C-alpha cells in the first residue's frame, strides 16, 4: 500500500549540510557513513598525505564509531544539544516507529514551520506495531524546523521538530 508519496528530494541535502556543520564544529577531517546500500564519505581540509610514512592528517578520534550516523533512518539521530541553534528546543520521539506528519494522506500536516504549538498540540503521529500514536508538543512556541520527512522511521530520542519557545 502506498500510503504517502515517498518523495523527499531535499532532506538528503539537508542531512549533508548538518553533517558538514558537525564536522566543522568538532574539527573532524573525515567522516564515513554507511547504511546498507548507501554510503557517504566526506573529507575536510587537506587530504591525508601519503608522502610521510606512518603520519596521518586525521587524529584517531575521528575513527571512533558513530553508530548514530548509520541509524535506521540513515539520519544523524539526536544531534547533540550543542548543535542546535541556541534558544530552540527539540521535540524528541518518545518511541520507535514510523513518522507521519499528517493524520491521513489527504490531510495537511499537523504542523508546519511557523505553526504555533502548545504543550497539548498534536505535532505528528508515530506508528508502531500497527498502532498510531499521537505525539504532543509538550512545549509552547513556534515550529522553527521539521527534522524528519514523512513516513521516515524514527528511533527513540530522535529530535522531530525544533521549537522556538514563547518568550
Amino acid at each position, binding site marked *: 500500500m502506498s500510503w504517502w508519496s515517498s518523495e523527499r528530494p531535499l532532506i538528503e541535502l539537508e542531512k549533508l549540510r548538518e553533517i558538514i556543520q558537525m564536522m566543522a564544529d568538532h574539527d573532524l577531517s573525515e567522516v564515513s557513513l554507511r*547504511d*546498507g546500500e548507501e554510503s557517504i564519505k566526506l573529507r575536510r581540509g587537506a587530504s591525508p598525505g601519503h608522502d610521510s610514512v606512518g603520519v596521518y592528517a586525521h587524529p584517531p578520534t575521528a575513527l571512533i564509531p558513530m*553508530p548514530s550516523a548509520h541509524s535506521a*533512518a540513515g539520519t544523524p539521530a539526536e544531534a547533540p544539544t550543542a548543535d542546535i541553534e541556541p534558544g530552540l528546543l527539540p521535540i524528541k520521539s518518545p518511541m520507535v*516507529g514510523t513518522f507521519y506528519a499528517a493524520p491521513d494522506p489527504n490531510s495537511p500536516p499537523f504542523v508546519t514551520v511557523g505553526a504555533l504549538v502548545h504543550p497539548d498540540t498534536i505535532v505528528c503521529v508515530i506508528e*508502531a506495531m500497527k498502532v498510531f500514536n499521537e*505525539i504532543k508538543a509538550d512545549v509552547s512556541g513556534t515550529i522553527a524546523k521539521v527534522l524528519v520527512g514523512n513516513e521516515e522511521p524514527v528511533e527513540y530520542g530522535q529530535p522531530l521538530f525544533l521549537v522556538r519557545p514563547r518568550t
Partner: protein
Amino acid sequence: MVQASRLHVQPRRLHHKNRCMFKRILIANRGEIALRIIRACKELGVQTACVYSEADRGASYLRLADRTVCIGAPPPSESYLKSDRIIAAAEITNADAIHPGYGFLAENAQFAEKCRASRIEFIGPSAEAMRALGDKAQARELAKRAKVPIVPGSNGTIDDDAEALRVAKSIGLPIIIKAAAGGGGRGMRIVRELDKLKPAIAQARQEAMIAFKDASIYIEKFIEQPRHVEVQILADQHDNIIHLFERDCSTQRRHQKLIEESPSPAIDERTRLALCKSAVRLAEAAEYTNAGTVEFIVDAKGNYFFIEVNARIQVEHPVTEMITGIDLIKKQIAIAAGETLGLSQRQVERHGAAIECRINAEDPEQDFRPCAGRVELFRPPGGPGVRIDSHVHDGYDISPRYDSLIGKLIVHRPTRDEAIAGMRRCLDEFIVEPTHTTIPLYKQILHHDVFVKGKIDTGFVERTFRMQG
C-alpha cells in the same frame, strides 16, 4: 519528553512468511552476545539491525551492524525489556526475524508470541514449549513421561509428619526441606538422620511462616556436593533433534557460572551417553525447537537428575562450538528460517577439550562488586586454539546498568590438561586495567588441585576462596 497516546489499529503491509533465509535480523540484545550474533549474520550474508539504549550509544560493536535503532533510556526496563519498541524497531528496519540473545526477553513467551503475531520470526523455541518448560511442575511431569530422572521428592507439599517420614524413608537420607512459597535459603533444612526430621520440619514451617506467611513445605532428596552438567540440544522444525554433548558448569559462585568446560571431567562415557540421550528425550517430549540446554545435577556416584531447561542460547555456548566445530548461532538462525538441521547425531563429533572463563568486571576481593567505568587497557591473549568473544577494547566505558560480563575467553586443546595449561597461559597474558576482573580468581582456580583433578562441585568456589566482604 512528550507523551504518546494510542490510536486506532490499522492493518499493515503483509510479511510473507517464507521458509527461506532471512533478509535482515534484528538483534534485541547488547554487548558480547549482540556482537556474536552480528558476526554470525554477516557470515551468513544476512543483514543486521541492532537495538541499543542510550547507555550503549557509540559502542563500537554497533558499528558492525548494518542498521542501529535507539530504543530507550539506559535502564533495561526502559529499553532492552521494552518489547513493543523492539518489535517497532524490527518493523522500521524491515527485519524479518528477531534474535533475542540471552537474558532480557530471551525466555519471555509473551514476547515470542508478539513477534510472531507481528509476522516477525522469533529465533528460539515456540512460546508453547517455553511455557511448558518454564513451569517447574510441568517440566517435572514432562521429564517423568520421558523417563528422565528427576530429583526424588514429595509430590507437592507435605501435610503431616507421618507423610514426611514416609517420603523421607522412601527417597532415602539426606533430604532437604524447602518452603513451598520460598527461596533464598529461608525455610530450608537439611536432614541427615531420621530422628531429626520432626524438629527440622517444625523449624522449617516456622521460618517459612515468618518469611512468606505460608508454612507449606515440601521434601526433596538432598544431593551432596553436586556437579552442574548440562546438555546442548539442537532441534529443527522437521522433528530432527540432536545433542551436542555436555558442558560442565560446576565452577560457580552463588549460582553464577564462572568457568565452563566440555567434556565434563566428572562423568564416564556411559553416563555421558545416558545423560545426553535423556536430554534428547525431554526435548522431544516438549516438542522443542531451536537451541536449548537441559540442565542436570550429578551426584558423586554419577547419578544425574534433571533440573530445568534453558530455552535460549547460553553464555557458555562457545565451549560446545569449540569441541564440535558447529556454529550454534548460525544453526539457530537456520532452524528459525525453516531449514533442516543438516546433520545427524552420528555426524556430531567431539574433538579435544575446551574451557571457558567468563571475564566479569567485578572485584573478587570486594565481594565481587561490579567495577563500571573506563577500561584503559584491554589486551586479550591470542595464539592457537584461543577464542575471544568480547565487545570491549582499550577505552571502552563499562555501564553500571548491565551485567558485568566484559568478555569470554575460551581455550581449546587436544586434552583437558593441555587446555588447563593453555588457559593458565592466557590468563597470565590477559591485561585489563584499571578495571578489577575475575581473572585473578581464575588463575587461582586453574592452579587448584581440585580443579586440575576435575573434582569441583558447585560449592567449591565459595568453600575454597574466602572472599573479603
